């Protein structure tokens, strides 16, 4: 029970990070983006490439920071991956979504996002292969936090949870303490008025893709650190990230954070009653439940169609 709960919180922090960008993009551009979760894959693999590169160039960076399997090379690689992933998100927007936005409806964007996801996922497969990859071959030993009830946690898991919370806090400070953050919130609430107030919409769209890409890359790296990297990673995150977004209410950053934890914990606890084979379907059940009980989520506005 307690183990499931803790595992759920750990997974939830990764969902939360990914859902922050998703909820902003979905709110601002008004479409469900099925290619968004592929950004986790791009981030995870970009970090893999730079991790190996940095460790090869400066061997001292490749040494694990005890008791983690994390190396300074991976820390730097993650920062690079965040930028690269943000840039790819902007690139996809320029190449595909922006052009479709100019002439067609939101559902064409949904359709196109499925196509983009399929392309990205399979290009990753072609480059990196089907098999799973790990950043570190070191064996991460779990620490026994408690014997009764049994509770095992790996140091890497604690690190990723803390790092995810730090990133969320940093973004919270940006939103509440900087005029750039005010502009982001202003655009989310009222795009026309924010334009009149001197905010350039296209720059905000670019900014949101960059932020979303960056946070997703971090989420991808954290997931890969505590599990593994695989080309289907993005596909596996599509539904939980949508669920977190819908639970929180589309457009609500804090809702997305809370939604991520709710989905993670619910999926974790569900393992007590359901075989693990059904885990991928859990977010779907959560989505259905939210749509039935509270269609606009916890913090969402009633803004249909």
């Amino acid at each position, binding site marked *: 029970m307690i183990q499931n709960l803790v595992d759920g919180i750990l997974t939830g922090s990764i969902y939360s990070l990914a859902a922050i960008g998703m909820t902003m993009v979905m709110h601002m551009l008004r479409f469900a983006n099925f290619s968004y979760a592929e950004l986790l894959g791009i981030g995870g693999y970009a970090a893999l490439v730079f991790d190996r590169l940095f460790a090869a160039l400066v061997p001292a960076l490749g040494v694990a920071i005890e008791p983690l399997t994390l190396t300074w090379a991976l820390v730097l690689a993650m920062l690079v991956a965040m930028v690269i992933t943000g840039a790819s998100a902007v690139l996809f927007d320029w190449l595909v979504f922006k052009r479709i936005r100019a002439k067609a409806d939101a*559902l064409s964007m949904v359709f196109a996002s499925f196509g983009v996801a399929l392309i990205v996922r399979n290009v990753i*497969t072609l480059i990196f292969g089907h098999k799973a990859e790990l950043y570190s071959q070191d064996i991460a030993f779990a620490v026994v936090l408690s014997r009764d009830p049994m509770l095992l946690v790996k140091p890497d898991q604690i690190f990723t949870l803390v790092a995810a919370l730090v990133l969320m806090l940093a973004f919270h400070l940006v939103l509440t303490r900087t005029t750039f953050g005010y502009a982001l919130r202003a655009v989310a609430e009222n795009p026309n008025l924010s334009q009149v107030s001197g905010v350039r919409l296209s720059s905000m769209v670019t900014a949101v893709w960059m932020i979303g890409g960056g946070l997703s890359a971090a989420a991808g790296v954290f997931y890969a650190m505590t599990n593994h990297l695989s080309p289907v990673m993005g596909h596996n995150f599509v539904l939980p990230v949508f669920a977190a977004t819908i639970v929180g209410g589309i457009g609500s950053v804090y809702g997305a954070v809370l939604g991520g934890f709710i989905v993670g914990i619910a999926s974790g606890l569900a393992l007590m009653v359901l075989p693990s084979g059904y885990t991928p379907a859990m977010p*779907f059940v959560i989505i259905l439940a939210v749509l039935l009980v509270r269609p606009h989520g916890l913090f969402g506005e009633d803004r249909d169609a």
Partner: protein
Amino acid sequence: MIGLISYIAFFATMAGIMAIAVLGLNLQWGNTGLFNGGVVAFFGMGAYGTMILGGRPEAEQFGGFELPFLIAFAGGILAAGLMAWVVGKLTLRLRHDYLAIATFGVAIAFESVTRNAEWLTGGAKGLRGFPRPFEAAIGDGFTYGLVFLALVLAVLIVVYVGLERLVRAPYGRVLRAIREDEVAARSLGKDPARMRLQAFIIGSMIMGAAGGLYVTFYAFVSPQDMAPILTFQLWAMLIVGGAGNNRGAVLGAFLIWGAWTLSGFALARYAPASMQLYAGSVQYILIGLVIVGMLLWRPQGLVPERIGKTFNDRAAKAPTNTGAHQA
């Protein structure tokens, strides 16, 4: 020679089954503007439904009722319709892209069930089928391939003619009106949510029918048959053919299935041995490029919507006519 004809019959059977599913998709997306993100689940529901009702009993396995083919087939179609009813009821009144998310979720959930609920779906080992209709009389050979092709084409024609009548009838005009302008449609006294639900259910039942034919043909079904790529293939067929046009939908099905088969052959033959494992990925990228490319450069498809166009023309002309009268 027999071999070639036999292969062509096989190809046409598969393409025909795809075309049926694409027609169902066209009713949802092309005519009503409903985005189905998990076509494979409705196809699969028809497939598994048909199999469970018509299959032979096996130990520790639910189903195997050995119902006659037509009843099992109808049961599979109904199962797909039932699933569509539940999903549609929950999501069709909400933001339009919620349907895409929910149907995508249905496909994931459906895949979980096919892989894990062994008592119901056989899990990874799948379900074995039943003797195909008329197989006992004709035998499992060249002639039977042609007979089954005829059966598929007959269903295709029935679905095609039925849908053509439906979309040309006032009903179809209302569906398109809802797609173009929901508020205006509502002001005409139509209930858009109800109409959309009906179109979604009918479309899903047609996909279920395609699934039923598919498993009857193979006399076997497993989670491998229900890979998510099927959804993408069917979308590509519709967008290439031209959403909103049934002729285009059928044409797109044959074109894309042909391209898929040919690219498969070409990769198997010319790609280096080390790349064979990744031939599927190359094909998937091609399908993705077809979808994105069509949306960017030719969203109306090869055969653009005809009825919709005349409908729009008439709507556009209307104000001019009144203007002339006033003048």
